[in-house]
């Protein structure tokens, strides 16, 4: 099993969710976050006072998938979240050791 963490632009969420659903991903967690990468924030100007806003609003999407679904899921995220402009975000993949569904106590792939 793999744990996918994707940082995406907020307005791409609906497309990403739909793309993941189409490749068979049935659940996901979304968190509102702030951060920066190469985009390095933006500047705001109020009556001549310039403020650099480092931390931009993004969404963190977390998905657990079976190993065989990993590539499809990552492609789905990238395909839907990519605008081609700076700040599109990143996808991180890590090993997932265990998953347990609380209600039935199913484990691992059955719990996804």
């Amino acid at each position: 099993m793999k744990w996918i963490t994707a940082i995406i632009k907020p307005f791409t969420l609906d497309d990403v969710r739909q793309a993941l659903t189409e490749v068979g991903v049935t659940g996901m967690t979304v968190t509102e976050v702030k951060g920066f990468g190469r985009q390095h924030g933006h500047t705001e100007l109020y009556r001549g006072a310039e403020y650099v806003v480092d931390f931009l609003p993004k969404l963190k999407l977390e998905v657990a998938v079976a190993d065989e679904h990993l590539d499809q899921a990552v492609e789905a995220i990238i395909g839907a979240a990519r605008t081609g402009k700076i700040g599109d975000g990143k996808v991180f993949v890590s090993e997932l050791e265990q998953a347990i569904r609380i209600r039935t106590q199913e484990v691992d792939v059955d719990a996804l």
Partner: protein
Amino acid sequence: MSMRFDRRTVPALLGLLATSPTWAQAAAPAHIDSGDTAWMLTATAFVLLMTIPGLALFYGGMVRAKNLLSVLMQCFAITALVSVLWMVYGYSLAFSTEGMQAHVTNLHSFIGGLDRGFLAGLRPDSRYQTVPESVFVMFQLTFAIITPALIIGAFAERMKFSALLWFSGLWLTIVYLPVAHMVWSGPGSFLGDLGVLDFAGGTVVHINAGIAGLVACLVIGKRRGYPHVPMPPHNLGYTVMGASLLWLGWFGFNAGSAVAANGSAGMAMLATQVATAGAALGWLFVEWIVHGRPSVLGIVSGAVAGLVAVTPAAGTAGPGGALVLGLIAGVICFFSATRLKHKLGYDDSLDVFGVHAVAGIVGALLTGPLASPKLGGFGDVQSLWGQLWIQTKGVGFTVVWSAVLSLVILKLIDWTLGLRVDDEQEQIGLDIALHEEKAYNL
């Protein structure tokens, strides 16, 4: 305020002296006019609307979320405090004509007597020109309210509430009331006799408050972290709503200063609209050119600069003159609020000096030439340059008066109560630190 003469009957009097209740009553019909009264009741409500909620929202949106309530509280508390002081002695010190004589300079050229204290002698049938005197008392009260309220923008986010109350009361008494008296109380008033034109309070309200704001922010010092810590406005939506209410309320301020429902009021309203629009666009376009984008805060700041600038000129400038005045004020205030402040390094938090004093001075000076029929004005101005010199004297006097006395009051409070909250309170924010309330419980 109007040069207290009824333009229906006195188009050709020396445009200088038209401020006396006594004199005006001689010229105006000796009865209460229901149309004039209806308009003045409305205008009074408009001018109150300028402070609460207009100015409160305009300023409140520009501070950080942790200080929003403190600004709203200050505007509201000043409204209440000044109302009481006005009733007790304010109206009397500003508008009593006791001991005044045209072109005779004595104590009462500078300050009224106390014969109208507690509004003595005010009855339902008391008259000021063609409106009940009670309405005139109320109308003038709303001007006395907004003037100290304007100053709070200069020291926003760091003044003790107790110090604010003392400052507002003392400043009203020592700075505002004498200047209002000197400009508006009629023959024998110091600046009125000089011939200073100030239709609705460019000198009395805006220069007076703007200079006090500059002195106050210098005495109280910068906010913690200024200018390195970002302090962007927390809700520009409030600021736009506040500026919009100010624009609306300013019709009461300027058109109400005719103290009648007549052509003068109509022209003042028109001049106000044109100058405000011109200044809003002036600031907007110069900002677009300089910074590469038009900003929301810019267009509303420009509008306020235009409203301020046209205030002294509203009764005498033609529509063309008002447009020119607005454009000039918008462009100049853009530079004073965005460049001058950063260059000199003072922390006039919400640009009280940069917008109110600067636009007030531009407006007061240009009122002179723009009143001339040669420039499309309606004033009885003998000499374009002569009137400019008179206006300059009025501005100079007010700048010095406000600066010196504001400094004395601020130092006095600083030595006794202390002006400023401590560092921890400032860090927490005044809403929690001083009022134990939060604007937002989300």
